[in-house]
């Protein structure tokens, strides 16, 4: 929700930088997991799901083997459902495969407090028992409130709490870029 008073403070990544980060993470995933056997990608809706699809395409180009991709909606697992004034729109969790015994790469756009990832882990474990879960994010902006860290990071960005990092992607926003937004009078 962009409020009228919010303004773009800086452009942190352009389309090329986003593309290079995705390609690098794809290579790291393949290397760390020694291939793609039993591997699956799970993106957190909305933009994590888009990134997961892109990573899957890159991994397929590297290994010449398709990896399954699922989309996870974490709305129902959020810990702030009764506290937010903005009620989130629930979208469907969409898996065409059974996650049991798979190596799952959980994908999100921005890693911030870690609460979304906590919700996603709970949601995944309700769906089955994967062998392991690794976390890939495009941006790690710090300020963790839970003991969670990413296995693959596109870019580490030190940020202030009053700032907001927006990842914009072709599929959802019309263009690839990462921008920093200054929120008017935070807190």
């Amino acid at each position, binding site marked *: 929700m962009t409020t009228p008073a919010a303004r773009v403070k800086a452009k942190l990544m352009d389309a090329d930088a986003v593309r290079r980060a995705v390609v690098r993470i794809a290579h790291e995933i393949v290397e760390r997991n020694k291939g793609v056997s039993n591997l699956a990608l799970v993106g957190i809706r909305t933009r994590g799901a888009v990134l997961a699809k892109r990573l899957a395409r890159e991994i397929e180009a590297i290994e010449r083997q398709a990896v399954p991709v699922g989309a996870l909606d974490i709305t129902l697992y959020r810990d702030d459902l009764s506290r937010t004034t903005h009620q989130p729109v*629930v979208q469907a969790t969409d898996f065409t495969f059974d996650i049991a015994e798979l190596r799952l790469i959980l994908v999100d756009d921005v890693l911030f407090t870690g609460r979304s990832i906590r919700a996603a882990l709970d949601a995944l474990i309700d769906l089955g028992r994967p062998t392991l879960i690794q976390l890939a994010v495009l941006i790690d902006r710090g300020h963790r409130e839970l003991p969670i860290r990413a296995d693959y990071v596109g870019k580490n960005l030190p940020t202030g709490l009053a700032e907001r990092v927006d990842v914009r992607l072709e599929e959802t926003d019309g263009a690839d870029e990462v921008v920093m937004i200054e929120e008017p009078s935070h807190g």
Partner: protein
Amino acid sequence: MAEAAVAREAQGLQWTKKDLLGLEDLSAEEIRLVLATAESFREISLRPIKKVPALRGKTVVNLFFEPSTRTRTSFELAAKRLSADMINITASASSLTKGETILDMVRNLEALKVDVLIIRHAAAGVPHTIARQTNASVINAGDGAHEHPTQALLDLLTIQRQKGRIEGLKVSIIGDIAHSRVARSDLWGLTKLGACVTLCGPPTLMPSHIEDLGARVTWDVAEAITDADVLMLLRIQHERQEAALVPSLREYRLRYGLDEARLRSAKPDVLVMHPGPINRGVELDSYVADGPNSVILDQVTNGVAVRMAALFLVSGPPKVEE
């Protein structure tokens, strides 16, 4: 579906009502929001573990002053699949029989800190009256011959899933329109989403001036069936027959019942719907009820998703009083 949800979020469409009392009060956008939310909830009932923690710690009460199995069970499953705690109160076994008024009972439930009351009552407007008197959210599960919003919403979801749209469809509702809260809620919902509704039934079971709500009325069942995309049959209630509104169930079946021959005169891809319970061999022959055009059991499945959506939306963030 996902793209649509993103678009809605961009528009910031929000549920702002404390209660869900009827489709007459809802805008087309609000109806679409419930349907989109329900669409997302369908998947949960297909999982091996059919439970998400969204309403953990919320207490939901089924307060039924009229008999019901389907709706009550559907609400109970919906609440449980969202991890809410669920209590069933049946009026006939409650302190109402000792002379307590409904409002006193509701105040007591409020003192017990319940979050959502699901109310069915034989008199129109009872859920509305209760909603004004309590801070708990109220969902109308059927009030007299007035409204049955979750039934209409599940009908809309079923049509949308089967036909891919609602706008521009021709929907015929056939049967006892006068005593049917389902017909009224469906009429509101369908017309708001742009469907053309035809009502058909014996004149004794057709309310006067119902055309003013935007429906076409016909007594001729053949006309109602010919070009319809959806046929909704309503239950003929035996108790009404005693009041001599229809000469006999046999005559009703001959004049208005949907049998094999009448189905053949309909479009080949017509949807046959019924809110249940069915009187087989009266308004609907078994050949039709169990045939390929029937989506009656899909309605039941979709009912749980719609009620999950209703519970989720009304128990969302604290509502700002307008």
